């Protein structure tokens, strides 16, 4: 396939890996990839095995489903049991366990839940079913939130009255700051998410390099992208250079996508937000601006939500911060498996535990 296969070349990969080995002199270099798709790609292509011993790759909280707190899910499930409400969602959310059940089990119990591939499909459902209240679960990082803005714009233009969003969007750079501040983790460099960066550009990462001295590198998702990205990061670390650089120049630009940024600015404003496992991070989530609050499901369709309960032994939080590996969680592979997940890291296709289970095993 064009623009994919060329970036999976075996020979070039070997040479890049060799160059990384030549360049990495420090005793220990810890790099964090902050994106579930990077986590998956690293496992799928066996990249860890190509790197020298002194480079450690840890996975961060780059899986939006994984960082969505139980309370959000519980509210979505309550909504699904409301008369006339149809909850529409990306497929990833269906099997994540909330305090007492998942959206999928809610559906089996009679809740109205439908999987869609795009928020535009959810809007279409609302148009075609005027008798239903359609609520879309707006979860995702900056790659996904502009699409919800386009959808809201269409909803306003077309005067679709029966469409709401339950906003759960989160922002990546504030979470990266929280991780850097946590001294337990010890990050030397960040591999920044390719498509979040495509939207937001490089500027939002500058403060990490400037104020915390952490080099940041935007890398594409193909194996050669990741290897070259690691090389560029290692070069900066060895030189003691803290900058933000872009390896993914074929798609991501310095200024990002201005059209998308305009849309985000129009509909959303940053707000303090709770991340599963990381607690509340300031200005790390989105809420609808004044003028669009009539689209917020939480305000407009109040429901009783059960008391939030987290599984006591679940250690997703520590996995999300890169503090432990999936295999260090006592539930991993024994009680918590893809067939019967306890925490979201196991069920989401971008989750660290799910990637680990699939590609490394028990």
């Amino acid at each position: 396939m064009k623009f994919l296969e060329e970036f999976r070349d075996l020979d070039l990969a070997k040479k890049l890996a060799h160059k990384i080995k030549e360049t990495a002199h420090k005793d220990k270099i810890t790099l964090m990839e902050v994106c579930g798709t990077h986590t998956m790609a690293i496992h799928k292509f066996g990249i860890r095995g190509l790197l020298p011993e002194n480079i450690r790759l840890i996975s961060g909280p780059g899986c939006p489903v994984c960082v969505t707190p139980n309370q959000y899910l519980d509210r979505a499930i309550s909504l699904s049991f409301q008369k006339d409400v149809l909850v529409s969602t990306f497929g990833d959310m269906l099997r994540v366990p909330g305090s007492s059940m998942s959206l999928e089990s809610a559906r089996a119990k009679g809740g109205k839940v439908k999987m869609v591939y795009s928020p535009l499909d959810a809007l279409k459902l609302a148009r075609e079913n005027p008798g239903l209240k359609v609520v879309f679960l707006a979860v995702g990082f900056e790659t996904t939130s502009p699409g919800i803005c386009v959808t809201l714009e269409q909803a306003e233009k077309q005067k679709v009255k029966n469409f709401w969003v339950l906003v759960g969007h989160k922002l990546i750079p504030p979470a990266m700051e929280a991780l850097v501040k946590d001294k337990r983790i010890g990050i030397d460099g960040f591999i920044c998410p390719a498509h979040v960066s495509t939207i937001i550009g490089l500027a939002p990462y500058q403060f990490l390099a400037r104020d915390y001295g952490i080099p940041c590198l935007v890398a594409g998702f193909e194996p050669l992208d990741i290897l070259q990205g690691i090389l560029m990061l290692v070069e900066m670390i060895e030189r003691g250079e803290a900058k933000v650089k872009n390896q993914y120049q074929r798609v991501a630009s310095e200024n990002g996508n201005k059209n998308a940024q305009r849309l985000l600015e129009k509909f959303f404003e940053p707000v303090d937000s709770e991340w599963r496992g990381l607690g509340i991070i300031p200005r790390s989530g989105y809420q609808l601006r004044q003028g669009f609050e009539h689209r917020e499901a939480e305000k407009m369709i109040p429901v009783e939500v059960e008391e939030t309960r987290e599984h006591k032994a679940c250690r997703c939080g520590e996995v999300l911060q890169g503090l432990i590996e999936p295999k260090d969680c006592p539930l991993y592979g024994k009680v918590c498996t893809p067939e019967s997940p306890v925490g979201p890291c196991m069920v989401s296709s971008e989750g660290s535990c799910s990637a680990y289970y699939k590609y490394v095993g028990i």
Partner: protein
Amino acid sequence: MNKNQILLAHGDGGRLSRNLIEEIFAKAFANPELSPLADSALLSLSKKKIAFTTDSYTVKPIFFPESDIGRLAVYGTVNDLAVMGARPIYLSCGFILEEGLEIEVLKRIVDSMKSASELVGVKLVTGDTKVVEKGSADKIFINTSGIGELLEWRSMKKPLKPGDEILVSGTIGEHGIAVLSARGELELKIPVQSDCAPVWELVSMLYQEKVEVKWMRDPTRGGVATCLNELVLGQKFGVMIAESKIPVLDSVDSACEILGLDPLYLANEGKMVCVVKKGEAERAREIMRKSQIGKNAVIIGEVISEPAGKVLVSTKIGGTRILGMLAGAPLPRIC
């Protein structure tokens, strides 16, 4: 209800049942063993050892690109016989029909089964029909059981050893993608057809040429990954395959990238995975390639001693990863 639809009465054993059997089933599958329409078919077998298998088919939707549940019901079961090294001879067929099913649809499916059984040379000798109330079944469910005569194939009894080679008979993932696409729930248009086909011809050719085949499977639900895991489970050997050798059509590859699926886990209905004695792989490949359904046969890997019980993949960029059993339900990825 009009005359063109299946009624509950069609399943109650009376006149309507008899009409249905005579007009549709007996006409299509006419053969001496079936024609008495007795409680059992009386059969003769020439070999002492037989293979016997059963499968039920509940595929949704019942018609999907270039195939249907009927054809699947025949080929699926005869393939299960073929990969055990048995020549498929007889089939039974049980239908569970939903009240209201169009008789034309049933005829279409039965005709498809007739063509399929004729192609493979298998006789449908006994059957059963039940009708359930509307809503109790999704249009039509089919069960086929099959009997085959085991070939005298010494290598099939030999244990696998490190160095033995693994082949797949062609490109993978097409049936899974075709059915997913035919459900109409995806926004994607995917020009992929199911690979539904009988693999007996390949087995027969390998047997005739005395290739030392040790193990065969048809990689249906769960795909090639699952079938290789079943091979190594609990064994003292493992398996290593090369990602770059796995044959996948560009359109399947593309659909999988977009949907976040892995072709190694998708169902195939016209393919065979086999393990041959070390040194036999190239010969086996050339023999399979002589056939239309084996024209893309490829050597994909080998049996290894360590790690035992695991399937390893050497990736396109020279890394290694483990290929586990299919875990959870494949959901398309968005974010």
